[in-house]
């Protein structure tokens, strides 16, 4: 049951180096190259908190099927140098089948890596680089590794051109010379390429870019935000592109301003979004309550990182579920969604924008560092997310005509009231965070409170969300239940368990609130063993599902904190240990 049996072609490799060694650049080129060679791929990266310098690693897995997680351990470890590698050696699991590639002139390989029993090959990268004008070890190593992986040279060259597009022609030319030099020096005869070109051009996209794309596909045209790791790339991608679409991004003075700015813009009729990470979400919850009470649609993409407080800003965790679900004071129903993968970031954010607009409420979308800062080669997303059973267009219900009796918060059968936009005569009202009557005037009357609370809850719980609430794969008496980015390793664990003769289903929750309890219970059915998998210390989703009476009592939890990514093998182990106990 090793990962290597599940991929028809492809491999998992890590490129490590100290800051400035070009490990991440080499990884980016390799990802672009495997995409051009017809493979799917996933590129994660690991970095310390340093702004410049420090350690960095690029982790690439590629193969002929979509890649949704990094797998268990690495086939290849490409060490450009060994400075600082101890800081993240625990993120680079190796075994006896692994191969460490190192420069013949580099420092000795640290003992912590050799303990794995991995094989070692020393290669003349530095010597080859020195023979080139402005030669770079990372480019020579890239060429050699590319050849060993069976990638065509033209794919590597195209990947380098695409990745180094911003560099000068001179730098690009010297880099290509180094790649060719490494490629020519490799012994590549034994590894054939097994991928073929796809019919539709695949995409090379990061999770944060995918979230930004989902936002504009959903109609977002105004963003206000405050920079924070690891959410900033969502904003950096959006800022120039919103302008091209006729919208804008405003860098706010803080997160309190961000959330309130998008409440203002959305009140004006423009679908609006902000992106942040844990500490920023903490600052936004008061504003989110205002959006709920005033029924102003807004979307927050929260790219989770290790917490609490400032935690581990550059590494991943799924520990903001509690605040997303329960952070708002009062009875404040809102939507909580979680993207299940990089490609899914497009669909989930687009869906969240549509739902927030249609239901005139808050949608929090949980991404995380792993999703946000990884890149993947994916099939392009479809036209509409989770289309079956959905309305073709989820849009805001806007009052179109002057109505002297317009009452903004008038309860309606589905709880959604037409929203007048400034400029419409006869629709004037005051958006209100205080409890209010149907017309919007502040009210502390019990009857108004009960009516408005019920309206705001009903519009969410009564809506038909269709099949997008979860992704369900496989059949079997054993069930792996998860949410968000843990879906990748869970899906792979389930597949490998099935391959090993243990029938296992996987359910990954995309819509966490309102919980689709009936659908979930039906999907769970009479599963014999149930393991709820998530990447946090206190089993936040497991506890939530129990609180909603959505889990049988025999369900068990497998939760552990970040920043180490969840691996399929540990999930398999956690399920089968239980399985074996049941057998005895």
């Amino acid at each position, binding site marked *: 049951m090793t990962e290597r049996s599940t991929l028809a072609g492809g491999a998992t490799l890590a490129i490590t180096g100290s800051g400035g060694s070009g490990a991440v650049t080499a990884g980016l080129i390799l990802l672009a190259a495997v995409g051009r060679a017809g493979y799917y791929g996933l590129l994660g990266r690991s970095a310390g908190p340093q702004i410049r310098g420090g350690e960095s690693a690029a982790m690439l897995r590629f193969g002929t099927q979509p890649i949704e997680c990094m797998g268990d351990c690495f086939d290849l470890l490409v060490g450009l140098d060994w400075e600082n590698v101890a800081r993240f050696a625990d993120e680079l699991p190796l075994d006896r089948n692994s191969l460490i590639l190192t420069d013949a002139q580099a420092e000795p390989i640290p003992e912590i890596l050799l303990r794995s029993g991995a094989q070692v090959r020393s290669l003349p990268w530095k010597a080859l680089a020195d023979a080139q004008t402005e030669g770079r070890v990372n480019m020579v190593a890239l060429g050699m590794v590319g050849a060993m992986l069976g990638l065509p040279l033209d794919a590597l060259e195209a990947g380098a051109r695409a990745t180094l597009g911003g560099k000068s022609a001179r730098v690009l030319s010297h880099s290509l010379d180094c790649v060719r030099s490494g490629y020519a020096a490799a012994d590549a005869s034994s590894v054939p390429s097994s991928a073929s070109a796809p019919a539709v051009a695949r995409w090379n996209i990061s999770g944060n870019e995918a979230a930004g794309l989902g936002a504009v596909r959903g109609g977002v045209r105004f963003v206000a935000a405050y920079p924070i790791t690891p959410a900033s790339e969502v904003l950096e991608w959006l800022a120039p592109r919103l302008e091209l679409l006729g919208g804008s991004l405003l860098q706010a003075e803080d997160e309190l301003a961000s959330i309130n700015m998008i409440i203002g813009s959305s009140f004006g009729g423009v679908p609006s979004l902000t992106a942040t990470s844990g500490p920023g979400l903490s600052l936004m919850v008061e504003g989110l309550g205002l959006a709920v009470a005033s029924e102003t649609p807004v979307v927050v993409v929260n790219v989770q990182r290790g917490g609490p407080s400032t935690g581990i800003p550059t590494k991943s965790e799924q520990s903001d579920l509690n605040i997303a679900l329960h952070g708002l004071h009062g009875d404040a129903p809102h939507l909580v969604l979680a993207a299940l993968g990089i490609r899914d970031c497009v669909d989930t954010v687009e869906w969240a924008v549509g739902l927030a607009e249609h239901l005139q409420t808050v949608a929090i979308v949980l991404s995380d560092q792993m999703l946000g800062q990884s890149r993947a080669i994916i099939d392009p997303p479809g036209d509409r997310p989770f289309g079956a059973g959905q309305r073709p267009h989820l849009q805001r219900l806007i009052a179109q005509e002057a109505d002297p009796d317009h009452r903004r918060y008038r309860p309606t059968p589905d709880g959604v009231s037409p929203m007048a936009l400034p400029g419409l005569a006869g629709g*004037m009202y*005051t958006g209100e965070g205080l409890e209010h009557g149907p017309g919007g005037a502040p009210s502390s009357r019990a009857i108004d409170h009960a009516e408005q609370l019920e309206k705001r809850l009903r519009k969410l719980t009564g809506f038909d969300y269709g099949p997008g609430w979860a992704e369900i794969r496989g059949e079997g008496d054993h069930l792996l239940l998860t949410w968000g980015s843990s879906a990748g390793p869970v899906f792979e664990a389930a597949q490998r368990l099935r391959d090993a003769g243990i029938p296992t289903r996987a359910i990954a929750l995309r819509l966490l609130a309102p919980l689709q309890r009936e659908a979930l219970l039906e999907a769970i059915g009479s599963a014999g063993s149930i393991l709820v998998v998530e990447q946090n210390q206190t089993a936040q989703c497991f506890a939530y599902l129990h609180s909603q009476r959505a889990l049988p009592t025999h369900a068990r939890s497998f939760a552990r904190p970040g920043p180490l990514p969840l691996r399929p093998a540990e999930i398999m182990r956690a399920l089968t240990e239980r399985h074996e106990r049941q057998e005895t």
Partner: protein
Amino acid sequence: MDVAGITPTLRAKDYKSDVAPVWCPGCGHFAVLSAVTKALAHLKLAKERVAMISGIGCSSRLPAYVDAYGFHGIHGRALPIASGLKAARPDLTVIVAGGDGDGFSIGGNHFLHACRRNMDLTYIVMDNEVYGMTKGQASPTTQPDWAKSKLTPHGTGMRPFLPTAIALAAGASFIARGFAGDPNGLTKLLVEAIEHPGFAFLQVLSPCQTFRPEQKEWKHLVHPSDMAPTDDPVEAARFIQADDGMALGLLYVRRLPVWQPQNQATATTADLEREFAL
């Protein structure tokens, strides 16, 4: 969104809503409400093109009393809400109303950045040097020896926040002071503030009869500014620092670049997607 309409027949009372104010009898805020409606009538602004934005506090109830679009937000956050609205809807006249606690304490950071961002907003702060809605605590503009609050029984011991000086330092392009007891002067300042392209800050001395009855004396203390409005920040700073806080009128006005995104769509999302294709 069609072009702004002009409605010449409306009078000040037509801009009042039918919601009854919660303010105490004699509250200065009644005069501010009246000045707002008079200014809107004077400017012949179509009601549906006006948005009144506020945070929390006695003064922040004002949007509900004006027959226009409005948003009553949360404590201290009126300026961001207004900024987001104006960024998204430059066609609207956006007026922000609040008090000294809302604007200078919990919302202090937003005040600084709204001044320097210089969006085309009008910000009216009804300053009565007290938190009225929470029943009489010291605010940032309260004198240090005011010891009537149970929270600060020995006074605040802190120098008061100087709204006009801070607005100037932060880059506001229009700074004025009005008085609730001078309705005509207040209306005139409001008209000028609304017409000013950029961030117009109007501090209104608005007495609190309930918690600061001594402010009845303000009517004897206020006086017209003896300086003509200047566009020189050094001169304005000198005047504002020497001022007793009771000088009324336009203190500083300067044409500065107004922040307003104005982007025309030149691409579709499908165009953007091409960048990802291999």
